[in-house]
């Protein structure tokens, strides 16, 4: 079980718990504003962009090359950017904070 906190574009903090699946699926099923997940999680649409809290980067891990290529062309991307369809939920993620890039 992992507790994951989303900070929405309206600065609302929402903490959710899950055991499996992708972080995007968790966000979409709980209507987290700004996470659309249009492509269903295959890294095609970049509508699940989050900024990982700097202290949580090691827990979440780095983006793959294909994901980096997507993020490179996103105007809101920075060194903490991830597409959360590519982040699998595990206990390792417990306590991380993700800010919706919107």
């Amino acid at each position, binding site marked *: 079980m992992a507790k994951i906190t989303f900070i929405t574009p309206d600065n609302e903090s929402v903490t959710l718990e899950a055991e499996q699946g992708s972080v995007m699926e968790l966000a979409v099923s709980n209507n987290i504003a700004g996470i659309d997940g249009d*492509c269903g999680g*295959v890294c095609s649409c970049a509508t699940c962009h989050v900024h990982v809290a700097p202290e949580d980067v090691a827990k979440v891990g780095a983006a793959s090359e294909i994901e980096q290529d997507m993020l490179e*062309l996103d105007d809101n991307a920075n060194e903490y950017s991830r597409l959360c369809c590519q982040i699998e939920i595990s206990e390792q993620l417990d306590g991380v904070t993700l800010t919706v890039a919107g």
Partner: protein
Amino acid sequence: MNRSEFPDPFEQARQTDGVSTIDDQNDPVTMVLGLKNVRKCAHQWQKFQSGAEAGRIVVPSEVNIRDTRQIPFEVDPPDHGDYRAVVEPWFKRPLEPAYQAQLSDIIGSLIDDVIQQDRVEVVEEFALCLQSRALTLLLNTPFAESDTWISWGTHVFRSEDSALDASKANILYDYIDQQIERAAANPTDDLYSVLLNSDFQGRKLTKEEVKGVMILTFAGGRDTVINAVTNTIAYFAEHPESLRYIQQHPENTGKAVEELVRYFSPLTHMGRVVTEDSQVCQHAAKADSRISLCWASANRDETVFDSPNEVKLDRKVNPHVAFGFSHHNCLGATHARQILQILLTQLAAKVARIDIHDCQENIEDWQQFQRKVGFHSLNVTFTGN
């Protein structure tokens, strides 16, 4: 077992040059073929613009048959974003459960009908009907309107011997004009009425702007959806095991839709007008010339996709550009994805097998590239579960 194969005619040119120039009514187009370059060019809207003369970014160019600017498609930022904000919530309605339930009824009834027939021509009798009836949901218009759209046939802009036919296009434009006047006189809760009452930069949208949105909605989602649906039927006819896979793994329906859309790439490419002397893949792209973003080629890029010419319904990472990329990604993608998701689900539930009798392929002629994009006709028999 090859009628559902869609070869990649761009492979060699993509690997050797990365671009290839074709002519189009004496306004040449340099096609960009690799995925990364296609995405970069799509992203650089200042250098590769959409807001050129109305109709020019479409290939073949529609400058001689259309004056109305398609919105938000032929507008660049910052106005593009303001237009998009007006229309986007409406085009996200396919995510609502009630919309999906109605779409399931439409598609389910159509499948029930074709199972009862001995022989079905998929393009006219299935895909066109499905696309037209589903469009009544997107527009929130009476279901009976779909009969009018079906009567237009599969091609709104094309006749048998011409890729561009102004008289056929005028049928659509005149129809939209009439609908806008009707909605202005007697507003309902359909898309025409909603657009006429929409605020844009502190004023209401004009009738010409509403017409621009409606032309985009009709034209952008017609041949593309018809091809995607027809090609999907051809694919499952030749891969019945894939239909059972969807039935047994419904959680992978979304991935399967993305993969089929990547493989079929219903829209081959879309143009941009170069605003300043530039370089694309070490080739000069002069100001006021045209490039195109070749989604179909990018989606077979072997440097990105493992086994790009194979359909892998459970492909996990699939950064395709079948719905375009960046600011101008497809406004109707939410609707199209729902159509295909429900089509796959309903086919898996209701259909045991599909047998192809004969077909006529639709091959696009881009001079040095001959691309199969769909079918002119596909005769099949559907057998129910």
